[in-house]
């Protein structure tokens, strides 16, 4: 994963893990790389990784068991909540951008429906 140097890196680490969780690439009980491993593979400051991991622990996304490693904790309802939170963030950004381009609520709804319909057609075509 390439980090966007314009955004705080620890946030990007957390976001990346959240995405993996939401997509099901990580299951509760899965072991995630140790802080040091992560820092090395992604070439980031171990302090930054520590900050990210600590926040994930505070968010109860993961838990560290001494001597064994860090494991994914969240699942079920918790995961759904994170999923909804992430969706809310994306929606907020989307709506703000569309509004700043001058579109009204009806415009946005129409365009979204059309774009979604388009996507369905494309998906069908591929099949």
């Amino acid at each position, binding site marked *: 994963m390439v980090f966007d140097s*314009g955004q705080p890196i620890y946030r990007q680490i957390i976001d990346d893990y959240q995405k993996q969780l939401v997509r099901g690439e990580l299951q509760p009980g899965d072991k995630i790389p140790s802080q040091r491993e992560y820092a090395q593979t992604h070439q980031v400051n171990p302090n930054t990784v520590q900050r990210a991991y600590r926040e994930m622990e505070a968010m109860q996304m993961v838990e560290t068991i001494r001597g064994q490693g860090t494991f994914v904790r969240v699942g079920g309802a918790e995961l759904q909540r994170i999923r909804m939170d992430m969706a809310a963030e994306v929606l907020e950004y989307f709506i703000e951008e569309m509004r700043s381009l001058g579109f009204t609520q009806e415009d946005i709804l129409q365009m979204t429906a059309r774009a979604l319909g388009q996507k369905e057609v494309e998906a069908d075509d591929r099949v």
Partner: protein
Amino acid sequence: MIEFKEVSKCFGSVTALDGVNMSFAAGKIFGLFGPNGAGKSTTLKLAIGLNRPDRGVVLVDGKSPLDNKQNMAFLPEVDHLYSWMTLRQAADFMRSFYSDWDEEKYRELLVFLQLKEEMKLSRISKGQRAKCKLLLVASRQAPYLFLDEPLSGIDVLTRDEIIQTLIRDFRPGEQTIIISTHEIREVENLVDEVVFLDNGQVRLYGDAEELRTQRGMSLLDIMKEVFRNAN
């Protein structure tokens, strides 16, 4: 912790540092950024005691840098090792001076950096020489590690190895690393805190992540903006 209190340093008619105040807390990676001639090298040399300030005071853990040399590892921009030595001879030499020499790390890094002990320092490529210099400072458990332009003139693959070496052995909270470079992009994701120097003065300093959040830009873009405004 390293403190610079109202430090000024001139070399002849050139003012390298002009009444600067800086402090480097222990256990973090610092990026010392700025254009050529900003005073980055001078800052490092003053911290190690290779130069003395004309005015002001430099303190390392509350004492003079000269009393702290055993805690310091320095990787200068120049080729400072005896070129007739092999890597083995250079390592032997260093071993005799530093009680924090870590033989296991040395062996590991030899393999990781793909270096051979029989290599004669005068006969190897620039990239290999840079790796040798790094090997000798990284094979220690030194509380302070100073790197002056560790990546300049080095090919991309070697740069990767160098950065990986720095990360894998960094001991957060215990070790302090100060990297002076104008290649900000390479070390962007590596540094905890940054100091931007220009013409011997501090233009900006702070926590890297906070600066990114505040300004919504990378450190590189922040520096460009800072220096554009200065001019």
